[in-house]
């Protein structure tokens, strides 16, 4: 008595208490290639635990250099993860079958983060190093990697922001990671220039990353060498060669951040800017060398103001506050940056 139901292989379900725990994760083509062909290890990351109910802000999946948002998509269907099994039939013959060993009611979907920037997170998390000294606001001090662990972005994206902001880590006292303020950086830009002139290495043929490093080695000033090296790295290309465009822009932006919070005449900014640069780069100085998002022009383009100057004021004010004040500000600052990052 053959029936249709006798055909096919058995299909059974493990009871819920015996099931394994799996999650289903959709792999976009790029991730599929990394995982299958290059056997890359990926990383789940999330932001720091927020105080509210210990919930994580957002979970992401990172490749070494890219970040994907994770979205949990529920399904009303019963999705079973099955594996081959075998059982004895009535005649004691071993029959292969399939057994559901897990059920998943949701799938994780990934979407690439459009314009990742770790800068907000670093600015929110780091103690600032100002021109008048260091404000210690973290206890115990976090290492660079500990900081990166709390940033829901890939390692390369964290490193890029770290480099661009000229952040630096001090291994000795005062231990910790620091974000230099614009005024601290302007001081260093100027001291690099004056040292270069003094040592006669400011001319085009001689002004190089190597020479700037030598200047730091002879540094007798208060600012830590780590800051100088971090600033140098922020204006170098991938091969460690000075990038004049980056240098010019960095100096201009730092000057604007120091002087332009409440606005200043553009001509005045350009003059100070030129004066802070080696001679051969001074002709590059023009407002357009800055990114359009970094400044606003007013009064028939005669006045220039740092973009987002309101927050600039807040940052400047926070700098002058005591350790305790900086600590209190921390959560507010982070919440803002979180919103901005979305």
């Amino acid at each position, binding site marked *: *008595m053959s*029936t*249709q*139901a*006798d*055909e*096919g*292989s*058995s*299909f*059974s*379900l*493990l*009871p819920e208490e*015996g099931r394994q*725990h*799996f*999650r*289903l*994760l*959709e*792999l*976009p*083509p790029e991730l*599929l290639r990394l*995982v*299958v062909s290059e*056997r*890359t*290890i*990926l*990383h*789940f*990351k*999330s932001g*720091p*635990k927020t105080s509210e109910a210990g919930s994580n802000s957002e979970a992401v*999946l*990172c490749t070494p250099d890219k970040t994907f948002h994770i979205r949990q998509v529920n*399904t*009303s*269907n*019963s*999705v*079973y*993860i*099955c*594996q*081959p*099994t*075998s*059982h004895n039939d009535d005649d004691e013959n071993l029959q*292969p*079958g*399939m*057994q*559901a060993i897990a059920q998943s009611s949701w*799938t994780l979907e990934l979407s690439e983060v459009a314009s990742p920037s770790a800068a907000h997170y670093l600015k929110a998390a780091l103690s600032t190093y100002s021109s008048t000294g260091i404000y210690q606001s973290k206890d115990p001090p976090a290492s660079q990697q500990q900081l990166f*662990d*709390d940033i829901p972005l890939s390692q390369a994206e964290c490193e890029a922001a770290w480099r661009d902001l000229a952040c630096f880590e001090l291994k000795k006292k005062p231990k910790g990671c620091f974000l230099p303020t614009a005024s601290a950086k302007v001081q260093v830009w100027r001291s690099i220039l004056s040292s270069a002139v003094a040592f006669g290495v400011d001319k085009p043929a001689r002004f190089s990353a190597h020479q700037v490093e030598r200047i730091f080695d002879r540094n007798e000033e208060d600012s830590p060498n780590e800051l100088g090296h971090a600033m140098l790295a922020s204006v170098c290309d991938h091969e460690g060669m000075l990038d004049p465009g980056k240098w010019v822009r960095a100096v201009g932006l730092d000057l604007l951040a120091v002087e332009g919070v409440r606005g200043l005449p553009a001509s005045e900014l350009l003059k100070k800017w030129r004066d802070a640069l080696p001679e051969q780069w001074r002709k590059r100085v023009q407002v357009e060398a800055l990114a359009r998002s970094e400044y606003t022009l007013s009064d028939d383009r005669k006045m220039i103001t740092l973009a987002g100057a309101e927050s600039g004021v807040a940052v400047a004010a926070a700098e002058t506050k005591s350790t305790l004040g900086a600590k209190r500000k921390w959560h507010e600052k982070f919440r803002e940056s979180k919103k901005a990052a979305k």
Partner: protein
Amino acid sequence: MPAIALYPPAASRTSSGPNPLPQLLQTPSGLAIVEIQGTVNSTLSAPQLGPDACIPLGKLSFPLYDPSAPAQETAWQKLVYLYVGRHQRLTGEVKKLAKPLAVVRKREVEASSADEGEGTEVMEIAEIVYYKVLFAHRPEPVGGGVEG
């Protein structure tokens, strides 16, 4: 919070036993995905359950599948039956996933690496699945001994 590593599928993964599925649905580890629109409610009592208290749902059948047919022959994918008990049948099909699914699980931490400290949770991709069997229709009644 430290990042949690997600390891790629182990190259050495193997299936636990003979795989009854068509070649297309077989994966190195044997893991496969079967999706049913709806839920399974069992009224079986303990003596009726299989080993490990598993619920013997029924039989999975690919009536048009011919193992000797060339791989580019795909018509069989349109028809899959899942017989539930003796009297019901679900009709489904094999679906290629638009985006393959990684089946992710917690990795067993070996004793040697356990001293890395608590909180070093490690995940791994047990398998990457490219096809699923989807039963998106209502069950139809079938007679016990009658041709379905």
